[in-house]
C-alpha cells in the first residue's frame, strides 16, 4: 500500500468543514424532542440506580440491607412516602435505624420531578414474592386481616389510592412486622404532619399480640390477588 494515498483522504478545508457540519448535525438530531421522549426511561433508570443498591434491579428488595420489595407499589403512595422522607416526616426518628438508612438517599432525588419519575418507575415493576421468613398461621392471619385491615387496604390487599393506603399483597413479611411495631411504638406515623400515619397507628395498636402480627404479615406476604 502506498502511503501517499492516505493523505488523499484529507481533501482540504472545505471537506473538513463539511465533515464537521455533518458530525454537528448528527449530534443535534440526538437532541430532537422525539429522542428525549425515549430518554425518559433512561432518566428513570438513572435515578433508580441508587435505589438499586439495596432494593435490587427488579425491586425485589434485600433483607440484609433492610430494604423491602417495592416493585408494584402504587406510584402515588411511593411519591407520598418519599416526600415524607425528604421532609423528615418519616425516617427521622432516632430509633428508626432502617428509616435513617433511607433518609439520606433522598439527597439523590433533589430535582423537582425526580421523586415523581422514580415513583412511576417503581410502580411499573411487578411485585416480587418471597417465601415466608417467619412462622405464621396464614388462615388466622387472613381472618384478622379481613376484619381489621381490609376496609382500607382492600379485601385483595391491593390498597386504596384515595386513602393513600398501599398495596400489601406480596410485601415482605419481615418488613410488615417491623413497620407494624414502628407504628405501635410511634417510631413511624407519630409526626404531626403524618396524616396517614395518624390513621394507621391506632389500627396497628389494635392487633392483639406478636403472633397475630406475624400471622397477618405471613398471610399478606403470600396473598396473590386477582388482578383486574
Amino acid at each position: 500500500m502506498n502511503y501517499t494515498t492516505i493523505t488523499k483522504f484529507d481533501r482540504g478545508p472545505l471537506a473538513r468543514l463539511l465533515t464537521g457540519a455533518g458530525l454537528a448535525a448528527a449530534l443535534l438530531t440526538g437532541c430532537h424532542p422525539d429522542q428525549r421522549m425515549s430518554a425518559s426511561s433512561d432518566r428513570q433508570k438513572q435515578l433508580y440506580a441508587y435505589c438499586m443498591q439495596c432494593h435490587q434491579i427488579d425491586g425485589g428488595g434485600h433483607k440484609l440491607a433492610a430494604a423491602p420489595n417495592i416493585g408494584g407499589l402504587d406510584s402515588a403512595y411511593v411519591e407520598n412516602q418519599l416526600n415524607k422522607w425528604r421532609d423528615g416526616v418519616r425516617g427521622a426518628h432516632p430509633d428508626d435505624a432502617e428509616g435513617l438508612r433511607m433518609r439520606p438517599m433522598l439527597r439523590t432525588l433533589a430535582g423537582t420531578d425526580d421523586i415523581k419519575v422514580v415513583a412511576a418507575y417503581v410502580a411499573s415493576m411487578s411485585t416480587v414474592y418471597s417465601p415466608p421468613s417467619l412462622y405464621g398461621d396464614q388462615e388466622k392471619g387472613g381472618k384478622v386481616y379481613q376484619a381489621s385491615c381490609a376496609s382500607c387496604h382492600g379485601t385483595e390487599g391491593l390498597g386504596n389510592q384515595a386513602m393513600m393506603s398501599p398495596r400489601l399483597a406480596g410485601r415482605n413479611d419481615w418488613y410488615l412486622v417491623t413497620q407494624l411495631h414502628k407504628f405501635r411504638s410511634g417510631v413511624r406515623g407519630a409526626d404531626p404532619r403524618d396524616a396517614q400515619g395518624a390513621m394507621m397507628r391506632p389500627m396497628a395498636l389494635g392487633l392483639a399480640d406478636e403472633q397475630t402480627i406475624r400471622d397477618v404479615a405471613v398471610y399478606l406476604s403470600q396473598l396473590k390477588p386477582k388482578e383486574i
Partner: protein
Amino acid sequence: MAEQHPSHESGGIGWQPLARSVFLTTFLGAVIVVGTVLFYIFAGGEDLIARLIPANSSFAGDIDFVILVIAGIVGFWFFASLFAFFVLLYQSRRRPGHKPEYLAKHDHQLHTWVSWPHWLVIACDLIIIIVAVKVWHQVKQVAPPADTVIRVVAQQWGWTFRHPGTDNKLDTVDDIVTIDRLHVPLDQVVHFELQSKDVMHDFSVPVFRLKQDAVPGRTIKGWFKPVKAGAFDIQCAEMCGIGHGLMPARIFVETPEQHAAFLEDSARNASVPGGQSIY
C-alpha cells in the same frame, strides 16, 4: 526517527534537552510552591492553615502547629535534596574532556554523604515525635473537666445526637435527641461519648481539627471546646457503605442566649419527634 541530538554534533555544550526541561520544570515548581508558602507565612504567620479553614476549637492551633512543623521539616529536606540532586547533575554533565566514572571506593568523603543525612533524619524525626506526642497527649490522652456531656451515635447513614437538656445530665427525661443537628455551647468543654450502631464511622469536625473513629460495641470518649459561634460541618470520615458520602451533619456552636433558646424550644416541642427537611 532521524532526529539528531544537538549535543552529538557540537561535542556536548550543555545538558540533554530532557534533563534541562526536567530541571526547569522542577525549579519553577519549587519557586512557585516556596513563594506561596512564604507568602502565606508572612501574610498569615501561625494562622497559615486557619486562613484556609477556620480553626474553631481550643486545640485546633496545636494541631495546625504539628502539621506545619512536619510540612516545614519535610518540605525543607524535599527541596534541599532536589537542589543537591540537580547540583550534582550539573557538575557531572557531559562535557569535553571528561569521561564518565563510577565511584565505588571506600572513601570517608563518600561516607559523609550517607551518615550526615542519616543523623539529620533521626534528629528531625525526634523533633516531629516530641511535638506530635506532646499535642496527642494534650488532645487525646487527657481532657479538661467537662462542662457538658453529649452522646454521638453513628449509623448507616446518619447521626443521632443526645443532648443533656436543661439539667445538664445525660440519660434523663429532659434529654434532647436530634438527627443530623448538634447544638453545643460556646467556650464550654464538651465531652462526647461516641458510639456506632452498625459499622465503623468517623466523627470528623474539620474546623475543630477533630477526627475520631466510632467502633461498634465500644463507647469512645473525647472532648472539644469550641471558641467561635456559628454553624459548621460534621462529616463521616470513614468509608461506611453506599450512603457514606450522603451522611453530613451540622454542628451549631451557640452563645449562652442562643443555647438557652434551643433548650427552651426543644423542651416546648418535646412531644414532636419529627425531623427537619434534608434539602
